[in-house]
């Protein structure tokens, strides 16, 4: 076995996994505060990524375009919660799931209507350099994606553990009624949760697209499946699980493509296999909380 090839693929997997982890974090953020799986998360990120592309296409430096898009997405996420989700929040979970699926289709269509159906090229913030460390090839892109993931985690940790808004977000996730009784506006916190998730999605989308290929209306779909697999593996209510799960899925996928020839063209089998396996063996995920209900 070629050791340096193995490590090269491992690094690639970690780089891709960092993106899945970011998006899985966004899924977990919404799940923890609302108990809802947001199937539209990928398409929200898609629309945000097109916004990044548009800003960059208009002449903005790519870094500025990304930051502006992240800020706009933060606001957009809050608006989506207030306008689309809030009216059906009290309805049965099934209805809310259908609403997020509807949003998935609507956002995808909206993206094509607004930005057209032709493939776009987006610049990368990371230099196109590849370092050769004794045969192991490590791209600046991979290092950058991992770095961004680390920064995201640190920032989220600070927000959740060290700020009053974070305390309120955790209180709402833990016990919404008690949160209301101490004066926390649950609705406002749900808006913050969606806003953060949308911002994370915007960042993930804007960073991953230049790494893969051109930006099209289907760019985020496979990535969302990988993110779902990561979140399912880690546990939908665990941010740590999302990060670990996303990275594991990324690595598993990279190694499968490299070493399991027959699976090369059906790589989506990997995340689906992981989701299926987790549901069979440990439904709450590696780091998730097992819910015990008294009957």
């Amino acid at each position, binding site marked *: 076995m070629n050791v340096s090839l193995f490590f090269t693929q491992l690094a690639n997997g970690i780089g891709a996994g960092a993106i899945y982890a970011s998006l899985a974090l966004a899924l977990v953020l919404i799940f923890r505060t609302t108990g809802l799986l947001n199937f539209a998360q990928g398409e929200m990120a898609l629309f945000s990524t097109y916004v990044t592309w548009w800003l960059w296409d208009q002449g903005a430096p790519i870094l500025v375009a990304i930051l502006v898009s992240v800020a706009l997405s933060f606001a957009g996420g809050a608006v989506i919660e207030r306008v689309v989700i809030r009216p059906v929040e009290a309805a049965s979970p099934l209805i809310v799931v259908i609403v997020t699926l509807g949003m998935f289709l609507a956002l995808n269509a909206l993206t094509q209507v607004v930005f057209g159906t032709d493939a776009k090229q987006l610049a990368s913030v990371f230099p196109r350099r590849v370092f050769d460390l004794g045969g192991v090839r490590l791209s600046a892109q991979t290092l950058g994606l991992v770095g961004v993931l680390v920064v995201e985690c640190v920032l989220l940790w600070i927000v959740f553990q060290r700020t009053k808004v974070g305390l309120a977000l955790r209180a709402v996730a833990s016990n919404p009624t008690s949160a209301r009784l101490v*004066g*926390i506006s649950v609705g406002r916190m749900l808006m913050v949760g969606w806003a953060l998730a949308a911002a994370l999605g915007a960042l993930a989308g804007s960073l991953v697209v230049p790494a893969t290929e051109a930006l099209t209306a289907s760019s985020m779909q496979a990535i969302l499946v990988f993110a779902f697999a990561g979140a399912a593996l880690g546990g939908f209510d665990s941010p740590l699980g999302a990060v670990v799960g996303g990275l594991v899925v990324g690595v598993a996928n990279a190694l499968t493509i490299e070493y399991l020839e027959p699976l090369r063209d059906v790589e989506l089998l990997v995340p689906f296999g992981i989701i299926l396996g987790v549901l069979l063996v440990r439904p709450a995920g590696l780091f998730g909380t097992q819910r015990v209900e008294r009957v």
Partner: protein
Amino acid sequence: MSLLAVRDLRGGYGPVRVLHGLDFDVEPGEIVVLLGANGAGKTTTLRALSGLIPATGSVRFDGTELVGRRPEAVVRRGVAHVPQGRGTLAELSVEDNLLVGAYLRSDPEVGADLERWYTTFPRLRERRGQPAGTLSGGEQQMLAIARALMGRPRLLLLDEPSMGLAPIITQNLFRTLAELNASLGVAMLVVEQNAMLALEIARRAYVLETGRIVTAGSAAELKGDEAVRKAYLGL
């Protein structure tokens, strides 16, 4: 003037009417007990007062109308509700549970209050970093009361504080409530199954039956009332 003046309070869950026009008062600094069988509407009354369910009628707290306000607005006025089952934020640490109670405050004395309740409830200090869900039932009840007090309320609504607690723990709990009432002057409206203990610390009491108040009087009077003794004191 009453601290809390409730007039013709009606409310329920969707089409189900539970409260059929309640009138009662809580004076500043007094402990009032709401007695009644299961399903009489005691918990519903507290939920209507704190804005968790829609209600009609009038609830004047210190002159301000509370009916139609959201829970956030009711807490802001100084009414803290310790819900049935203690409302523990199980995944949060004990200390975070207490800090959540001070969510609406931005004054610099939050830290001093935290210290104060740690001194009153030393068990909470010992377990400050632990997830609150790992505390015993009695400790969680202390935590719930301390969390409510972190907001510096003028009226405390307590829903079945003794639920699931051993008799000795319940006795300590009621002694603590009486002490807090005496030292802070915070008024309390207590819903309680353990009528005997509740009447010990209360000044006045109301008896609720199927959403209506059927008896009212001083705690001493109700302890002597034949019907109340039979129905709620098991004597």
